[in-house]
């Protein structure tokens, strides 16, 4: 309906292969980004701190996992741990080299989780599917343990936790207790946009194709000269990098501090669910999934009391938590059955409908 494709023709391959070949899409994405930035000025502290910042960070983590599960078809249950690696790496780097700008370290911390990811990815040569999942569980538990039991990682704090020290950019505090949500939001947003752009370059290029190839038909892929191990390990590396960066951002740009059990297996599952519900093999899906699952409890916290309050039934926080688990579980099953490609597919369908409007196809 809003699409006016007539008159949009491509005279070069680069134009034809663009991520957003349609003008309307380009405008749309631009508007969204503009709005996102404007939130820094119009968004309330609650909005930024409790909704947008975490949403973006989870989206990034989900994107990372999606690169692995959705694109390369490698199931991982260790996301939380890989995020942890990023967080702790970043913490160490920040404290060892306080001179260097923290944003550099946030981005650099990803490389450490990438390395760890590759290591735990090695079995993927021999094993697939849930075997691999178990292997990643090993990573999950081992790493979580080391966050707890290796004091060096948290500089021997008595608390055993890591806190974000004060760091500034052009004199403006961006990390630490005095950093305002606005500033942190802008940084998070910028980083997420940047990394999303990179991710889309990857998945739309040769590497992305190779990942999807081994996902869809690994035998054929290998017979076409795609080296399975290399390709899979690359997926592990990139995915873990994104999760690592997300982890670092989570601790230093959102929580302001964390303990080892922040990165427990439930974190891993939460993010996996974001990917499944958002849509395997779709970057947009990562955002949609993160949005839905992260917003769910917030929405329930607001909606349910509003409904049941008047009826004299008080809905406690824990009840909401329980309901959330049930709904999550139900959602997963629902999506796997009804739309295995998740919200992203629904999004696509909607888009397609708009393109062929008023025709059904």
């Amino acid at each position: 309906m809003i699409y006016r494709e007539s008159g949009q023709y491509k005279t070069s391959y680069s134009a034809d292969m663009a991520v957003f070949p349609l003008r309307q899409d380009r405008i749309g994405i631009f508007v969204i980004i503009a709005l996102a930035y404007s939130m820094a000025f119009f968004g309330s502290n609650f909005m930024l701190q409790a909704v947008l910042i975490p949403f973006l960070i989870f989206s990034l983590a989900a994107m990372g996992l999606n690169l692995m599960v959705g694109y390369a078809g490698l199931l991982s249950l260790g996301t939380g741990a890989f995020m942890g690696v990023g967080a702790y790496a970043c913490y160490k780097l920040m404290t060892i080299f306080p001179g260097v700008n923290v944003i550099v370290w946030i981005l650099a911390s990803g490389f450490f989780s990438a390395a760890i990811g590759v290591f735990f990815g090695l079995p993927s040569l021999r094993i697939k599917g849930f075997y691999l999942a178990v292997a990643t569980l090993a990573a999950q538990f081992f790493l979580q343990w080391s966050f707890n039991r290796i004091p060096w990682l948290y500089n021997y704090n008595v608390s055993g936790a890591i806190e974000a020290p004060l760091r500034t950019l052009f004199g403006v505090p961006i990390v630490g207790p005095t950093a305002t949500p606005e500033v942190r939001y802008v940084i998070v947003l910028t980083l997420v946009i940047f990394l999303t752009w990179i991710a889309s370059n990857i998945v739309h290029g040769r590497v992305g194709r190779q990942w999807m190839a081994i996902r869809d038909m690994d035998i054929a892929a290998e017979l076409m000269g795609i080296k399975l191990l290399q390709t899979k390990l690359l997926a592990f590396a990139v995915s873990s990098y994104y999760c690592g960066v997300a982890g670092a951002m989570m601790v230093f740009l959102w929580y302001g501090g964390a303990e080892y059990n922040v990165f427990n297996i439930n974190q891993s599952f939460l993010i996996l669910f974001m990917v499944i519900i958002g849509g395997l093999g779709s970057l947009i899906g990562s955002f949609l999934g993160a949005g839905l699952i992260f917003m769910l409890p917030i929405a329930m916290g607001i909606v349910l009391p509003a409904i049941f309050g008047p009826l004299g039934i008080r809905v406690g926080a824990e009840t909401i938590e329980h309901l959330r688990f049930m709904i999550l579980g139900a959602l997963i099953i629902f999506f796997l059955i009804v739309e295995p490609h998740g919200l992203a597919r629904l999004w696509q369908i909607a888009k397609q409908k708009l393109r062929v409007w008023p025709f059904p196809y």
Partner: protein
Amino acid sequence: MSANTTSAHSFATDAEIEKAARAEAAGAVPVAATDPEVLLAVENVSLSFGGVKALADVSFDIRKGEIRAIIGPNGAGKTSMLNCINGFYHPTEGRITFKGETRRKMRPYEAAAGGIARTFQNVALFKGMSTLDNIMAGRSLKMKRGFFWQILGFGPAVAEEVEHRRFVEDIIDFLQIQAIRKTPVGKLPYGLQKRVELGRALAMEPELLLLDEPMAGMNLEEKEDMSRFILDVNQHFGTTIALIEHDMGVVMDLSDRVVVLEYGRKIADGTPSVVKSDQKVIDAYLGVPH
């Protein structure tokens, strides 16, 4: 049944005309003769899973530029043979020499790098991807730009993409699948999927192209198109082709030489006419209506 055989015949005849016509144009000499050089040699290859012997002491060769058919009843070990050739299985005995070099335990991607491409009996496309991406994936080996160029949305990696896109478009044009360029292959009818798979194999610019029943489950027109494409590939890109096919009509028209397998053993080898008249083959295969 009768319909089937007749169709095979009618098809046979006009494809024969085709071949003849082209032979004239080409200068009347059968292709195989022009280049006797051997591209791939299979020597005493045996293959067994546990107790089961899939191949027993099979030897034959494929010459540069020829179309070589591998036929035989179901379970004769044809597909296993292909799997050995492109390194998916490793022969328990015997050796396979490709371009003069013998590799023990050749990995599939090594075979691919060496110039062996392959299509599958039951289409093995990347279901989640578009026709274009499937064929582009076939270019993987040729794309050299490193990962760090990839992550930039511009520069050499993109230039490379474009360059290979151009190549792929030629294939799309060649196979006349422009109309489905951007359709997810999962949505395509079987015949077209087979065509796309051929395209994906061609994208590798192979020296040896292995086709596993390229026309299985196709109707007559589709078969005619497909065999025309196969001939064109062989003629224009000089690609050597080894194909497994059940439709005897097709085999007899397309192939320069035929090797016949039965129960993992080779029972005949030679030009279609020779094979056709071989008693063992007639008993084992042609006699059996299919």
